[in-house]
């Protein structure tokens, strides 16, 4: 069985028509309960983040950023899962979760700080305005252990499993098909299962780990790995925002109720490069890209909304909002300045450290030794 052939939860067909798969049955009440405003919000989220993503890609091409990992094509998996999380949940992204972070309140400019070289973090995850969203992690799979440990802490502190979903907390951790080969992901699943930690492992199978296809990561559908750890797992069409939302919501509520970890394999596709540093034409064919373009998550949701009679003004307004967000990003990103040089020393340790003080003093004296006080 190749990965694409396993059962899949899907609500919308490729053309946007409402056509739930057999496996979608149990999730349909959640989708039926969505209001027009919520459905429109899903669409807006996807369109705006795509515009931001395109703008960031352009900024990199123009030399304003060292790197950009595009999220084009993966909007539905990210928007569905992020909208499914509750405000008090904690999210651990990898480095491509631009839609997730934006929905949680992180300013996209803060992501650009990482890519522009003005910060290794970008935002403060303990600031409530960032929606309990941890900073990006570049080492593949590392964050799955942090998420499992954080969720263990929630369980130990009785902040989950009380039976009150308005209060019970849970964790979502994002990783990809490439990261799924990392030992840390395996260990995270072992720990999460052993301690009934309320964590949703959200794997976005975008089919390519830079140039290596998912078939090299796994001979079985990635969703099937969860069973080996005793983690109930669901495979969802990651280009279907409704299915992604409903599955994530359901599994997250199960996890927070004390049933232990849950896992999702969201089957999606990275339509762009891994990062702006690689060239997808070297490793995959345009026929494949064309095939996936037919499953574009935004076009699909737009067709669905049009089928429900959404007014043309909705799409015009959304496009205008997206253009504004992209322009705002550009104007603020290019004015980001280098941080103070004290950033090098100030946060290596939390408590005072003599070597940091000594080297900071040396550098200041050295800089001051030049005529005019600076080089």
């Amino acid at each position: 069985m190749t990965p694409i052939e396993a059962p899949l939860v899907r609500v919308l067909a490729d053309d946007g028509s409402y056509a739930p798969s057999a496996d979608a049955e149990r999730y349909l009440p959640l989708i039926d309960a969505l209001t027009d405003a919520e459905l429109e919000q899903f669409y807006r989220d996807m369109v705006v983040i795509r515009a931001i993503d395109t703008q960031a890609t352009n900024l990199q091409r123009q030399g304003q950023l060292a790197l950009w990992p595009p999220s084009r094509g993966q909007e539905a998996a990210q928007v569905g899962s992020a909208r499914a999380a509750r405000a008090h949940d904690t999210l651990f992204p990898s480095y491509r979760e631009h839609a997730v972070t934006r929905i949680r309140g992180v300013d996209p400019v803060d992501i650009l700080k990482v890519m522009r070289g003005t910060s290794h973090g970008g935002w403060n995850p303990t600031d409530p305005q960032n929606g309990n969203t941890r900073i990006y992690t570049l080492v593949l799979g590392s964050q799955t252990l942090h998420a499992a440990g954080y969720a263990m802490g929630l369980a130990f502190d009785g902040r989950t499993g009380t039976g009150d979903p308005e209060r019970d907390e849970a964790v979502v951790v994002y990783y990809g098909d490439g990261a799924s080969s990392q030992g840390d992901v395996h260990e995270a699943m072992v720990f999460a299962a052993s301690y009934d930690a309320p964590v949703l492992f959200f794997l976005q199978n975008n089919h390519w780990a830079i140039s290596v296809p998912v078939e090299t990561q796994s001979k079985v559908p990635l969703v099937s790995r969860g069973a080996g750890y005793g983690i109930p797992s669901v495979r969802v069409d990651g280009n279907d925002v409704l299915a992604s939302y409903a599955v994530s919501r359901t599994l997250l509520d199960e996890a927070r109720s004390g049933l232990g970890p849950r896992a999702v394999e969201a089957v999606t596709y990275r339509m762009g490069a891994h990062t702006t540093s690689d060239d997808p034409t070297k490793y995959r064919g345009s026929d494949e890209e064309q095939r996936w373009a037919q499953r574009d998550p935004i076009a699909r949701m737009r067709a669905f909304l049009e089928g429900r009679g959404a007014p043309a003004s909705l799409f015009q307004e959304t496009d205008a909002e997206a253009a504004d967000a992209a322009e705002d990003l550009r104007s603020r990103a290019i004015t980001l300045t280098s941080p103070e040089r004290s950033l090098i020393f100030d946060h290596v340790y939390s408590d005072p450290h003599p070597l940091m003080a000594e080297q900071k003093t040396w550098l200041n004296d050295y800089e001051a030794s030049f005529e005019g006080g600076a080089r």
Partner: protein
Amino acid sequence: MTIETMPMSRALNAGLRKAMEDDPRVLLMGEDIGRLGGVFRITEHLQRDFGDRRVLDTPLAESGIVGTAIGLAMAGFRPVIEIQFDGFVFPAFDQITSQLAKLTNRHEGALSMPVVIRIPYGGHIGAVEHHQESPEAYFTHTPGLRVVSPSTPNDAYWMIQEAIRSNDPVIFLEPKSRYWQKGEVELEASALPLHASRIVRRGTDVTLVGHGAMVTTLLQAAALAEAEGTSCEVVDVRSLSPVDYGPILDSVRSTGRMVYAQEAPGHTSVGSEIAATVMERAFYALEAPVLRVSGFDTPFPPAKLEGTYLPDADRILEAVDRSLAY
């Protein structure tokens, strides 16, 4: 003042117990540390007394232990990890050096990482491969980590508590060959700061410097040297990162000679760093080059050869003689 005589293993146990009583956010994690009390019994009875949510017998996965401890620290806990043996820390190396050590820096100070990693380390117990190593230089080379090693029961009792109180990650290296060495523990004394080095024996001719298990060997060497008419001062470094150079430099300035002894291979080691710094800062006080006595730059040998590999008092005395010959 309450003074009790006990081996280092019991002192560590008492220190952990005290830290857990003082702060309910302290929790212990590791392989076999609960019901068994650890393979060296350092955590004996702690699970019985504090429960299995404060003393966790974890799955057998070192990266998992460190990585989940990071998550627990993010959730407000102060995890104290046991890595069962020195040579088994490497599966967790990425989580320690790429994550634990850097998270405060990456968060620009918004986050502290109060995680202690206890590692029984070093040779002299006749163990098999991967059970006798001295990995301290890997960690002292990593910004963001603090690295310490006690040499006596009293220091072990106090330093483990200080390490747990630290808001930074601490690699806590326990000299396992000294676990059974007894000493007086002052249970109510005020602690020497975690990062202070300490003169443990006064002398006038040569300064002997080392850390962990080697401090005892240095004291043996100093006693033998005294019988031959040479007076050695002995300094216990205690903290390998950061190093407290004050007492070391004071001593070298008074004796003019220094020998550093360690079990670890000498190349790019803690002894190398301290020797270089002493030469930079006390060059005109030196009567001889700073000499290093260390393990060889080889893998730790099979146990029947460890007596040949590890520096002993005779090897230290040979270096003392060389220093005096300049």
